[in-house]
């Protein structure tokens, strides 16, 4: 049986699971059945994708008699689809495992279970679809299923608003993709990717397709300024769904972009690369700065997704620029960096959202200002959450560092690019990436420090209990992947080689055969990194230090009250909070980026009322783009509203005028 058929079987299975969920959702055993079946099916899809990449298998195609009459629906499994299928099914498997525990507390299972299977099935279909019609239908199906999950808790007004914004942005994204495919179908005369691939595009068409793909896929992935829906929608959903939305569905957006500009419309000019990488750099820095300003844990994570999408687009933009200049080897390096980061982000962002869900289950709180000290009551969750935080902050020897290191290596090869615009944009993007990495570390010191360390800031946080086995095992699997991909990155890079060879025509040197399992992107004299050695050195020197002290000095320990420079205060409100932690960075960057308004209301001496301090931080995308846009829509609606209350005479006049206008147009046309 060809591989693609198995993949399609999995997708169909997910849809059946969705239907089953609708049928049995009201029974108490339904959650276990649905999530258990999803887990099994995701593992099958995961095995398929992994074996496809390891075997360097040939792409296989199947045509189903569905869709448009006469064309049929084309599905194809190639290396790129297989890699993204791996990401989707890995996310699906771990989320299903997590949901076996976490999902049991769902109050409205009928609003989650049917759409869960549909959502997974939709994502699987998108990465398998091989013609414009199927990919758009599958994409829209995925968007609608995920919309239903976002508004699952529809009594929460925030969820409804998030769902509304999400629906508008998803439709806008689909519209752009529709136009992009329209241009491609017009040029080739057919809907299939194979025909589009074979057609040579004019330069204007190629640029237009790339721009539309960037806007369309970028709005699904969350590129600034099209990210506005993401920090609303991702936190609104139940936490395991948030993990799927943030960790996996944004990657389907990335897939759309890669599929269009690297494969279907591959004759791109270097300037599309320039636009993508500049946008990526801006997205990375703005995303992490917004994240720092948040005190809702899930929203902080959602904004961090924006940052990571930016890092991925930097890699993709570099790969485009290098490929357009014929430097396939470096293009392969940049593409590897981007795809490695896709994998990494899927792993650690799912892990972090699972952790946030565990915190939410245990305390009922998402507001970081009311958490704290959870490391004492949820020790296992704290360990895995810490690993996730360290990975996303790009700290060696974990996996986040490897993909950023590869991106830096690609940036350092960019003086070879001939275009002046790129010569300036690439180092500037490198600086932005460095800034984003440093700020991400600050952000996750804040997230872990305020939520898990310090003293509990509310009774709920003090009374929390560790979560169930299923949730913990899902988080431990992902944390183990973070560590493994960090200390043995060469294997991941080797798995990506079929993808890069298909899209850029070049591969990186075979990493598994490097001495000591180090990774070498170009040549050892140029750069190399060995996560394993670093990990061993860290462990050895830490243990050595501890052993020397414990053996030759003392290990006496005494517990006492907090010292705090001699002025200990018992109240937990004297601690630093998430807002106060971010305050210096808000002062440094905030005024320029957010237009922060700080209002201090300090009572005069002798007055007995309480003082107030208010900070207002607004996402500039809302301030400058969506706010004015929404207002102008409302204004024109107001204006059009008057047309509903005219007399019959006025309507007849309007009809007459419209007729004359049309006739004039027709006359002018001829």
């Amino acid at each position: 049986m060809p591989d693609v058929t198995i993949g399609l079987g999995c997708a169909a299975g997910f849809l059946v699971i969705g239907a089953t969920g609708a049928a049995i959702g009201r029974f108490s055993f339904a959650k276990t059945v649905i999530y258990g079946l999803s887990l099994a099916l995701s593992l099958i899809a995961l095995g398929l994708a992994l074996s496809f990449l390891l075997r360097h298998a040939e792409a296989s195609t199947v045509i189903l008699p569905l869709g448009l009459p006469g064309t049929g629906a084309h599905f194809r499994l190639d290396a790129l689809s297989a890699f993204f299928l791996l990401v989707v099914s890995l996310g699906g498997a771990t989320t299903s495992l997590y949901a076996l525990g976490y999902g049991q507390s769902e109050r409205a299972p009928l609003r989650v279970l049917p759409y869960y299977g549909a959502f997974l099935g939709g994502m699987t279909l998108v990465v398998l679809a091989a013609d414009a019609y199927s990919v758009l239908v599958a994409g829209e199906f995925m968007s609608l299923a995920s919309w239903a999950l976002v508004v699952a808790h529809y009594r929460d007004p925030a969820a409804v608003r998030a769902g509304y914004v999400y629906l508008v942005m998803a439709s806008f994204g689909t519209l752009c993709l529709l136009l992009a495919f329209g241009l491609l179908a017009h040029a080739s005369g057919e809907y299939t990717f194979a025909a589009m691939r074979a057609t040579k595009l004019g330069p204007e068409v190629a640029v237009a397709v790339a721009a539309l793909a960037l806007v369309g896929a970028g709005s699904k992935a969350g590129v600034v300024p099209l990210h506005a829906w993401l920090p609303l929608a991702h936190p609104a959903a139940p936490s395991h769904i948030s993990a799927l939305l943030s960790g996996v569905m944004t990657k389907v957006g990335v897939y759309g972009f890669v599929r269009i500009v690297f494969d279907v419309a591959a004759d791109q000019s270097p300037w599309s690369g320039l636009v993508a990488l500049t946008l990526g750099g801006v997205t990375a820095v703005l995303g992490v700065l917004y994240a720092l300003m948040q005190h809702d844990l899930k929203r902080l994570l959602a904004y961090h997704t924006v940052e990571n999408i930016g890092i991925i687009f930097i890699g993709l933009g570099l790969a485009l620029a290098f490929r357009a200049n014929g430097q396939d080897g470096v293009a392969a390096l940049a593409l590897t960096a981007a795809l490695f980061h896709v994998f990494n982000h899927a792993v650690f962002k799912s892990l972090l959202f699972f952790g946030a869900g565990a915190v939410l289950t245990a305390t009922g709180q998402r507001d970081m200002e009311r958490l704290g000290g959870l490391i004492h009551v949820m020790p296992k969750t704290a360990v895995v959450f810490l690993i996730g935080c360290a990975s996303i902050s790009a700290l060696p020897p974990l996996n986040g560092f490897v993909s950023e290191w590869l991106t830096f290596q690609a940036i350092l090869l960019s003086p070879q690019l001939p275009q002046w615009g790129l010569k300036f944009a690439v180092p500037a993007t490198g600086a932005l990436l460095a800034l984003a990495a440093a700020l991400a570390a600050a952000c996750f010191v804040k997230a872990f420090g305020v939520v898990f360390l310090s003293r509990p800031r509310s009774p709920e946080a003090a009374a929390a209990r560790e979560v169930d086995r299923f949730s913990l095992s899902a988080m431990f699997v992902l944390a183990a992947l973070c560590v493994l991909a960090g200390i043995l990155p060469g294997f991941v890079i080797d798995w990506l080689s079929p993808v890069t060879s298909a899209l850029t025509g070049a591969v990186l040197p075979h990493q598994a055969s490097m001495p000591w399992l180090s990774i070498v992107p170009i040549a050892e004299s140029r750069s190399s990194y060995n996560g394993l050695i670093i990990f061993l050195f860290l462990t050895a020197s830490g243990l050595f230090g501890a052993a020397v002290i414990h053996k030759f000095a003392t290990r006496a320990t005494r517990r006492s009250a907090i010292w705090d420079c001699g002025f200990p205060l018992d109240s937990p409100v004297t601690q630093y909070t998430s807002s106060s932690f971010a305050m210096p960075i808000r002062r440094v960057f905030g005024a320029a980026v957010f237009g922060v308004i700080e209002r201090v209301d300090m009572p005069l001496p002798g007055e007995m009322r309480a003082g107030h301090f208010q900070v207002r931080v607004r996402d500039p995308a809302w301030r400058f783009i969506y706010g004015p846009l929404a207002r102008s829509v409302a204004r024109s609606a107001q204006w059009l509203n008057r047309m509903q209350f005219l007399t019959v005479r006025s309507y007849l006049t309007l009809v007459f005028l419209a007729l004359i206008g049309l006739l004039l147009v027709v006359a002018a046309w001829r």
Partner: protein
Amino acid sequence: MAVIIALALQFFQIALIVAIAPFVLGITRKVRARLLCRRGPPLLQVYYDLWKLMHKEAVLAHNASWVYRSAPYLVFAATWTAAGLVPTYATGLVFSWSADLIAIVALLGTARFTLALAGMDVGTAFGGLGSSREMMIASLAEPAMLLIAFTVALIAGTTQLSAIATVFVTAETGLRVSLGLALLGLIVVGIAENARIPIDNPATHLELTMVHEAMVLEYSGRHLAMIEAAAAVKLVLYFSLIACLFFPFGIATGDKTAAAIAIGVGSFLCKMLVLAVSLPIAETSVAKMRVFRYPAFLGGAFAAAALAVFLRFVSRGF
């Protein structure tokens, strides 16, 4: 046999860094005290302090978690690992390829992340203050450091420190504008990262001016000893980074003959001495800054490094 010698040379470097770090710190303290017309502590005082701290019992707050207890060891391990991979007396040591300049910067990031978390652990106002300010400073200094890494990597065509040092010591690199800017940036970053004046005052105990000291305020005994040792190692790391990038003469590049190694070690120690004497001279000539003046200072380093990178992208001549 060759493998044993190679390993021995590598571990000699790793041990050398730790062995001399307290002494280098002692020199800076002594020189600083003399410049302030004080007699100053003995040169070996840092060793005595560490010895004393190690033998005292560690006092932990009731709610200190394992993060707080293990952080000193991890900070020390990450700093030491990073320092052990910077070429000091010889290039091309056996593990020199396992981490490049970017990875060394990131390893210091791991140490800082751990220490900042430890500062948050007990839940005091000072700890949070220190962590928050430390991460703010780092978020400005680390990008500048990476741009400096870009500059030297673009000149040498590699990010491996060992290979960069070899290129700079053998090939005719000459005086370059971009290297000058990078050196300027590296000095500013080094001052910020090592919590020296004008960013931070390592000797302060005035609460509002503390950054690094506030973060480790609750530590005592052997834990404090590990943190102090890590700070000393970090200072030597930055010194050896400056030495290996900008003053690589004397470093043993070719065959590891006894003479070459002796010259390498001797010149390394001389360079450490010169840097350890110059740092307090620079420190005593300026006053400490207000916290919200840091962005301008560190932004200057960032701008210098960015300019250096742009110059490299524009022309190979700079």
